[in-house]
């Protein structure tokens, strides 16, 4: 949330109060900045340093690139990276397919239900993610409620195994977990669009699809990019959902990091993997952020 903080408007009406000009920023900013440096920048720096170190049981250690070459050269990791990309991308697309029409309904059609629905979305996000994962597991499992219900009404003889512990269940859980953050930025950008434009488009003979593609979509593009920024990166790095509902085929990069660090105790390899994911996330975020600003500027 609140990513575009860098573009706060310049300060108007600056006035030296009791603090001197030099002391005021120090008084307000020193504590927050110190916390950020000590608990964010320094740990991230150590993480990067660790990713270039090796250490073995004999106690020797030093600089190396091998953590990275090991990861990048390993076909298994490449396969997991591909699975991760596939799961995150499908989940993102699914959310956009549901999220854009939902945002549209919220912004223009919901009327007096607009606020309650918005609140429901916020509430959906506040519900504990572990509880949500657990609820889905209860529904989708071999002895889960969906299979139970289908068997008891005689629609199927055998429980369907394909519902849980694979890519499908990870995609279901992930897309429902982040829908709030997909919908709200798009909704916010739609609220800024003058709905008279649609009538104008219709009067000029445009069908609903043309109106959507040529009028609405360009205007809400910044909102979509913000949604990508907020949702795609967490999707990419999730590891609770794949561990709990992913089985062996839904194993993602987040699981690799978690297993390297906690199961194997290989901090250097775990740090290298984290660093690579951070790079990917950073490049993606910058791109999405730039795109959202370019589109905003064009408006």
């Amino acid at each position, binding site marked *: 949330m609140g990513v575009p903080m860098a573009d706060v408007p310049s300060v108007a009406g600056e006035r030296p109060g*009791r*603090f001197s000009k030099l002391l005021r920023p120090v008084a307000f900013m020193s504590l927050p*900045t110190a916390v950020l440096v000590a608990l964010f920048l320094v740990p991230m720096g*150590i993480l990067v340093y660790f990713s270039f170190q090796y250490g073995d049981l004999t106690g020797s250690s030093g600089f190396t690139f091998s953590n990275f070459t090991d990861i990048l050269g390993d076909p298994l990791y490449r396969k997991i990276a591909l699975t991760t990309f596939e799961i995150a991308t499908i989940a993102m697309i699914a959310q956009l397919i549901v999220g854009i029409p939902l945002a549209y309904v919220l912004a223009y059609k919901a009327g007096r239900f607009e606020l309650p629905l918005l609140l429901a979305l916020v509430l959906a996000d506040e519900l*504990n993610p572990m509880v949500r994962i657990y*609820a889905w597991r209860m529904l989708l499992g071999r002895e889960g409620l969906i299979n139970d219900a289908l068997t008891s009404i005689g629609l199927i003889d055998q429980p369907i195994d394909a519902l849980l512990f694979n890519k499908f269940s990870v995609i279901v859980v992930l897309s429902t977990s982040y829908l709030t953050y997909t919908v709200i930025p798009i909704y916010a950008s739609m609220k800024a669009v003058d709905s008279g434009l649609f009538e104008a488009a219709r009067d000029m003979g445009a069908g609903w699809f043309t109106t959507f593609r040529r009028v609405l979509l360009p205007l809400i593009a910044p909102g979509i990019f913000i949604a990508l920024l907020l949702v795609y990166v967490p999707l990419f790095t999730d590891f609770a959902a794949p561990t709990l509902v992913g089985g062996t085929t839904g194993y993602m990069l987040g699981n690799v990091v978690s297993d390297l660090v906690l199961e194997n105790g290989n901090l250097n390899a775990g740090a290298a993997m984290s660093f690579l994911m951070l790079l990917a996330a950073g490049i993606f975020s910058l791109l999405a952020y730039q795109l959202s600003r370019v589109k905003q500027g064009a408006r």
Partner: protein
Amino acid sequence: MPLSRRLNRALPNVLSTGLVLVVMAILFGPVLLLALFSFNDSTVISLPWEGFTTRWYSEAFNDDGAMHAIWNSVMVASIVTVASLVLGTLAAWGLTRIKFRGRPLVAGVHGAVLVVPWLIIGVAGLIFFSQIEMALSLNTIILMHIVVTFPLVVAVVSAGLIRFDPSLEEAAIDMGASQLQMMRYIVLPQIAPSLAAAAIFAFAWSFNNFEISFFTGGFEQTFPVWVYGVLRHSSNLPVVNAASTVIAMAQVILVFGLWFGMKVLTKKRGGTDRDAAEMITGAVR
């Protein structure tokens, strides 16, 4: 009106209602079913319905692991909320009202925290604390939660401050108010709804945070970490049902309560529901 015309008119409404209903069912249905089955008198969570019971609740309340984890989460989230509100409000004021050198850089770092995945922050925290030889505990969880949560408060409160005209602050100072009086009587009432919203988000972020608690908690478990552990070994599931239902209920009540409070606060100063909605969307814009 011919039928086709009438259909044409009604179709969009039917579609939008249908869409909303389906999405709500997908978002809340599973959790509602989970709540329902927490009252089912069976050790396995499946049909048929075996009868109503509250025994999973009494078992949950007597489950040391569950209670300890819930207590840990409540305590951590409370401390994190207070600390984040203080740090976040200071920074929001500094970043929106004071001009100083390096402000874009400092604002950028605040924003960066929000886009770095929690998994990576968790791993970084784990390595960091092992390097400075600080034992992993609730304290380390709290520290890492604060650093990822207060920038969110900065975002929400900044959004509130930007919408609020600074000339009122000048007017107060011109009329002889001290800095403190100006903050107390002009600024605080204006940003109170933003602070309430920020408090909801901060508490939920900390309470629901799994990744960071998982990596930096050592042997201490918060509620999400406890559920994760139980689910991994698939034991004691009805108790998880009951405990999860209690937590979900508490979260619903908390969100609605604070939302209601926020609405009252906005209404009191002549705002409308619109303003309240903007509070939510303002932060992401």
